């Protein structure tokens, strides 16, 4: 699965997610990706999220909307992402990852799976990583 979130100069947020699904899935199986609130969500009043991981688990906890709910309660993008991923892991044993932004441009790339490729571009600096704790930067 791949995805992106963004904030533009006007403070508008957006989310996009795309996937081939799960390996050797049943014909006709649809996961979280095309479901609003699961594979992604965007609301200028709170932020935007794109998710990846085990779709059936993500759908059970409506992961993208759950993150934005935590942000509505005052958590940062990073804390809200971690809270929701931890909830999914403990409640339904689901692993995954997310990219999250708020309308002010604060962002997070968090995951509970073994790895997640991610990158962010802001203020002419590129941030990226794959492994837990890895955060590399270079100028654009």
């Amino acid at each position, binding site marked *: *699965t791949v995805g992106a979130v963004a*904030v*533009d100069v006007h403070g508008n947020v957006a989310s996009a997610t795309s996937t081939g699904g799960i390996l050797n*899935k049943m014909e006709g199986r*649809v996961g979280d990706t095309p479901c*609003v609130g699961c594979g992604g969500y965007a609301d200028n009043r709170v932020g935007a999220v794109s998710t990846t991981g085990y779709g059936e688990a993500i759908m059970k906890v409506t992961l993208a909307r759950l993150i934005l709910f935590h942000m509505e309660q005052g958590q940062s993008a990073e804390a809200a992402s971690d809270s929701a991923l931890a909830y999914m892991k403990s409640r339904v044993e689901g692993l995954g990852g997310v990219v*999250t932004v708020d309308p*002010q441009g604060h962002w997070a790339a968090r995951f509970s799976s073994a790895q997640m490729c991610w990158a962010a571009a802001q203020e002419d600096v590129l941030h990226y990583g794959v492994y837990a704790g890895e955060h590399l930067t270079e100028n654009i």
Partner: protein
Amino acid sequence: MLPVVVVHGGAGHCPKERSESAKKGVCAAARAGYEVLRGGGGSMDAVVEAVTQLENNSLFNAGCGSVLNIKGDVEMDALVMDGQTLASGAVAAVRNIANPVQLSRLVMDKTSHVCLTAGGAQQFAESMGVPLVQQESLITDYARMRWRQNLAPEANPVECQMGKMG
């Protein structure tokens, strides 16, 4: 606010021999989205551009490079959402489409619906002038190898794809 684009290339197990290429892929996608924002483009344009780049990169499980279903076919899903209006568009179980994310944006922009699936989504694509592509053009040798590996009765595709706990 500070314009920003953040992308992911999927959670789960990323083999070491593919991780450097995957890093380059997500970095290129983030740069492409950021260029849209730097040029005054909107956040929706930026995320669609970034995801299109990732769909076109055969390293990732979307577009070209998608994993295969049990019959060895590609079936893809995509979603876009606009934070200003809460408008959204999605496609599910689509085949023969190189960039499902662009088709999902057309669903958002050109219909009053949220999600189109399978044959209906394909008919919509044709009516919008979106070119159809051969299934084979979306299938990589790597995807075919993983499909074969997971045909065995004792195979665990989810474990294979998601890996162990982080």
